């Protein structure tokens, strides 16, 4: 690849965990502080950038590629809040075709269109579908496209398992030039034990949590207006949380090759936490009560 323009960051995490919401708010916060930002949704659902664009329609890269042989940047991008350039890779309808190859094809096209050379972004954020389901979805972290990957997780075990899977992919590709792990974004924090649980998982896998995003009604409300929190309630505490995340990503270049837990380790770890949570919730009091 030619000289990379801007910092390229990939956001992964279990389906529905809040990747698109978090990514869009980070993009908005970065744009707000004057950076040129591109957000690329790598997900056949193509709803990554909705709340940056007021919910308007945007033709996806792959749909456009299917319909016309010559594709221009204008056909497949829209300028959203704060000048963020919004792109949706798109993909096939569920049950047919190969979405993984779709991500590949879309990314190749963006490179052919010289979109980074044209737009000269400071940041490019890739919002990638759910778990790493096949090689195609590892493209942003595999081919040296993104420098850093962040994973969004809640304290749900399934979300942690998905994060652990992503760590496996990073672990596999990082030594040969793939992205390294920037850290963990803890989202939808509600329960008192959640930060400690996610912290512990991060520590066990050799990484760190870079921010805790509380579960907040403001997020849902903004979404209904097709907006990020940054745009709709800029003064809110929630907006402040996203700004802090953006600042961290901007100012901090730390990255690691994570050490994913193997299956028995992960099971054991989850079981121990399950017991602790059960005790806390049912009011058993002993020295672990402080979590």
């Amino acid at each position, binding site marked *: 690849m030619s000289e990379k323009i801007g910092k390229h960051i990939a956001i992964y995490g279990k389906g529905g965990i809040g990747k698109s919401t978090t990514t869009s708010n980070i993009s908005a916060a970065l744009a707000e502080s004057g950076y040129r930002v591109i957000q690329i949704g790598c997900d056949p659902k193509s709803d990554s950038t909705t709340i940056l664009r007021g919910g308007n329609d945007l033709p996806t890269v792959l749909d456009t590629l*299917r319909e016309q042989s010559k594709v221009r940047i204008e056909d497949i991008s829209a300028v959203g809040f704060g000048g963020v350039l919004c792109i949706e890779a798109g*993909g096939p309808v569920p049950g047919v075709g*190969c979405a993984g*190859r779709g991500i590949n*094809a879309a990314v190749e096209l963006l490179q052919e269109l010289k979109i980074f050379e044209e737009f000269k972004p400071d940041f490019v954020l890739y919002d990638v579908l759910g778990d790493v389901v096949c090689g195609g979805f590892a493209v942003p972290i595999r081919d040296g496209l993104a420098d850093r990957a962040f994973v969004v997780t809640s304290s749900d075990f399934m979300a942690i398992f998905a994060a652990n899977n992503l760590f496996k992919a990073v672990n596999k590709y990082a030594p040969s030039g793939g992205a390294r792990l920037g850290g963990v974004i803890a989202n939808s924090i509600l329960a008192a034990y959640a930060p400690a649980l996610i912290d512990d998982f991060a520590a066990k896998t050799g990484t760190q949590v870079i921010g805790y995003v509380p579960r907040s009604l403001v997020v849902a409300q903004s979404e209904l207006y097709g907006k990020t929190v940054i745009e709709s309630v800029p003064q809110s505490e929630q907006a402040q949380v996203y700004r802090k995340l953006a600042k961290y990503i901007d100012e901090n270049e730390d990255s690691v090759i994570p050490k994913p837990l193997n299956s028995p380790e992960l099971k054991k770890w989850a079981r121990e936490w399950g017991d602790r949570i059960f005790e806390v919730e049912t009011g058993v009091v002993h020295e672990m009560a402080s979590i």
Partner: protein
Amino acid sequence: MSNHLEGSRNSCALHGALQLFEAIEGVIPVIHSTSGCGVQHYLGVTRLSGGNDPFSSPPVSSSNIAEKHVVFGGGSRLREQLKNTVKVVQGDLYAIVTGCSTEMVGDDIPAMAREGREQEWPVVYANTPGFSGDVHHGYHLALKALIEQLPGIWKRKGEFQTRLVNVWGIIPNQDPFWRGNLQELGRLLEGIGLVPNLLLGSEQGIAAWTQIPEAALNLVLSHWGKLPAGLLEQRYGTPSIILEGAPVGSAAVPLLRRLTEQLKLDQIRSEEFITREESLLNHQFARLADSYYRAGFQREFVLVGESAQVTGIGEFLGKSFGLLPRMLIITDNPPDNVQEALADRLSSIVSGYDTEVIFSEDRAEITDIIKTSDVQLILASSLEREVAVELDVPFLALSFPLDDRIVLDRGYAGYRGATALLEDIGSSILAFSNDRLFC
């Protein structure tokens, strides 16, 4: 663990299926894959099998999918290709075969075939991605498709025919002499009063395939023919006679006698036929004797080919022709139990003489083995020509791939095949000795 393989002679499953479909008159294959699959079939298979066919049969229809079909699914492309093929090429049956890319994507092929049938087009399909196995597996997949799907297209009354015999196990092109071999086997069966259902080659079309259930017997001529015979036994209770290779020369006698007994044929007629064929072959041997002794035909040889060929030809040369099978190298990779049985059977063709039986599909390994073997005659594929030149011994190419012979209806099975072998092996030994004499 896996190891490096050079110059394999076993192409992919898609090609195996194509070989079969292309060998049936009136069947129009439709490839659903990337464009290279069809090209590779011609370059890597049909063209290297005695210079047959491509120009005399219609070019193969292919959906030639591109990236967008991988991403969004190629079902609609196949639908369109099938429609166009039906429009442009008249056929009795359209056979969809798939390649690696479309199977990775998971296109719904049965649904496409069903749609075709709803239009009243006779369509069958076989999922044949190259990664599922080699050419033999593809042959199986295509056979299975026909056996299972044809009855849904053509319903026949299906009256049992006491003399009808289905012939299985000769893989078109993978055996470059398949046409001649089938014709000769047909002649032998007719000779004792049977009606051969050869299924492949000229004048073998859908009519032959739809009468499969009516046959009295399945005659299996290689390990690879066991699968269709098994399927038919399950479905229709048809019994089978199973051989590991088509018999060459006098090896046909026990088969003809067994058929006569099992199908209650006219014994006198069969014996008369056998006597006639035997005496003709003996006559050929006698005529050959002068050259045989003058040029020293009795040599230690290596034979490289598919298990069926190696068995049939190897035993004939050892048992009837007095040649010494030093090494038999079997390239079609049959399952372990079959390998054991073959090794057992073939290691003592000539009593008191040890034959080495080797299983390999690796050109480099085969070449190395031959190099260190001291053999005086090489009967193999064109891939072994080089080592024959290096060792300076007579050479005849008779197994796949074959790039220096034209094969129209020559065969090496049965009595005529035996005569052809005597001619061809004798000629190459003579040509070789004359070259050495006069230069």
